[in-house]
């Protein structure tokens, strides 16, 4: 059990700490959505009908093979993400002790410990599956929920098996990703290095974030089609920017850890801010293309400015709150709230400029005064 405790402290807690932003955003969005629906449906849907519709929703998932497959895809992405995190963390110098301690246990004991660790990470999924099994048993749709359970246990067992093998193999020399190998001959600078880090170490996070940042707003366009173009574009840009918060946080963490030497470079503050701007603008290129594709020029230009400047503002806020996720999350929700108010009052044209100015002021005052 001693190993289970250690694995729990390092990997399970670490996973939830690092991904708290993404998870909170996801649950925050779902909760906001539920409250929103509640207000609209007060006069039209009775409590009994609400329960009926909710049950119908779960029953549809556990009775429809297509939706069931979709749920399994979501479970797979979650498991891949945790696998990506743990397999990278195992090779962190601080965890090297596992290579000369954990592997003195028998293989079956190691496998059991890693399996428990992986199951604990998958806890939200397990809870969901248990809930769907109960509903399934009551209504006679137990095949898909049981299949979910077998699927998740199978994946977790496979992950545990790979972790066990990793810890029992000698530590391998550093092996970079394909993009990093491809760009080896390119000249690197402070704009491109943080982005290459995302491709090297945070590839799955990057893809999931981009999927959310692009997919969620496209879904919202259908619901909010009665808003005027500029306001709608502004709202979409805010959602896109907030969706990228986890990547912005990761870039900041990486720079503090690996690029703190740059604070000793004799670069003008305006030049350094321009570097930040270019890094963020490059990171947001997929979203910028989507905005251009959806909206006309005026709405596109305003929304692009909001997208970049709000993201820059979130990055500047990190100069104040440092690597503390909680105040950063509060800031994100405050920014979201303020943005919605500005958009509601029809002054979204100024939003981008306000965020850009705020971002520069914070940057100017705090960049050379980081803790």
């Amino acid at each position, binding site marked *: 059990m001693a190993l289970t405790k250690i694995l729990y402290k390092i990997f399970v807690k670490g996973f939830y700490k690092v991904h708290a932003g993404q998870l909170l955003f996801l649950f925050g969005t779902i909760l906001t959505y539920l409250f929103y629906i509640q207000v609209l449906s007060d006069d039209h849907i009775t409590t009994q009908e609400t329960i009926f519709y909710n049950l119908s929703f779960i029953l549809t998932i556990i009775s429809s093979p297509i939706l069931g497959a979709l749920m399994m895809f979501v479970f797979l992405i979650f498991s891949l993400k945790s696998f990506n995190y743990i397999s990278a963390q195992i090779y962190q110098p601080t965890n090297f002790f596992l290579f000369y301690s954990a592997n003195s246990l028998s293989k079956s004991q190691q496998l059991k410990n890693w399996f428990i660790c992986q199951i604990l990470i998958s806890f939200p999924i397990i809870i969901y599956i248990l809930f769907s099994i109960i509903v399934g048993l009551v209504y006679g749709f137990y095949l898909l929920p049981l299949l979910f359970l077998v699927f998740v246990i199978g994946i977790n067992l496979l992950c545990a098996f790979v972790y066990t093998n990793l810890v029992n193999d000698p530590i391998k020399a550093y092996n970079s990703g394909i993009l990093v190998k491809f760009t080896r001959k390119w*000249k690197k600078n402070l704009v491109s290095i943080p982005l290459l880090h995302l491709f090297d170490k945070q590839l799955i996070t990057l893809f999931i974030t981009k999927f959310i940042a692009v997919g969620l707003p496209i879904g919202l366009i259908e619901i909010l089609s009665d808003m005027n173009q500029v306001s709608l574009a502004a709202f979409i840009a805010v959602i896109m920017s907030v969706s990228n918060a986890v990547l912005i946080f990761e870039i900041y963490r990486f720079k503090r*850890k*690996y690029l703190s*030497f740059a604070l000793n470079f004799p670069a003008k503050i305006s030049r350094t801010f321009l570097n930040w701007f270019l890094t963020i603008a490059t990171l947001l290129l997929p979203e910028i293309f989507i905005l251009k594709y959806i909206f006309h020029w005026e709405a596109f230009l305003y929304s692009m400015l909001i997208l970049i400047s709000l993201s820059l503002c979130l990055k500047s806020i990190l100069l104040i709150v440092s690597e503390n996720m909680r105040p950063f999350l509060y800031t994100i929700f405050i920014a979201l709230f303020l943005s919605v108010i500005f958009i509601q009052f029809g002054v979204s044209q100024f939003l981008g400029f306000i965020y850009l100015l705020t971002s520069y002021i914070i940057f100017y005052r705090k960049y050379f005064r*980081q*803790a």
Partner: protein
Amino acid sequence: MQLSFTNYRKTFGAVEVLKINNLYLDSSIYWVKGENGSGKSTLLKSIAGIINFEGEIKLNDFNSQRKTVEFRKLVNFAEAEPLFPEFLTGKDMVDLFAEAKNASSFQTEFYLNEMKMQTYINEPIGAYSSGMLKKLSLVLAFLGNPQLILLDEPLITLDTDSLQILYKWIEKKYTEEGVSFLISSHQALDLDETLARKTLLVENRTLNLLEC
């Protein structure tokens, strides 16, 4: 070189780790002594401009937090345990520093050759040993035209040949270009006896210049 501290104070949360009311240092090679956790690295990082502090640090009248560009042109720094992105090569780091610190290609080649780093300079840093990484960080600290070089524990993890090369660089920089050094170390510096050397003691949360 004129380095001065005025009402310098560094805290971590509510804990005060270092306080220097007034101190003036002129050109020399300074051995920064002190126990583990006494604040040597904090002192060097503050001078390098990497961490925030209260008060003022000036080099030749350039305030580190106001005249940021001028100050940083004159100060170079090598960390005790350098951390660089694993996917970059040593050459990437050298190019980055050479551009930022305005170093010539002749200068970079000279230092890399002296430390015999050419065989692995194009390899990713993730594949470097701690000694190779240390040598890289020391080369980076000598690039450009600094007037003050801060070396945090430069003697650890270096092999004896590389150590002799480092001493040679320090002596040459000081005698030929007048570059000053602040070198933190637990062991005495094995430098030429004729060179002007002074000792700084970090103790009781402050810094004192010891009389030689």
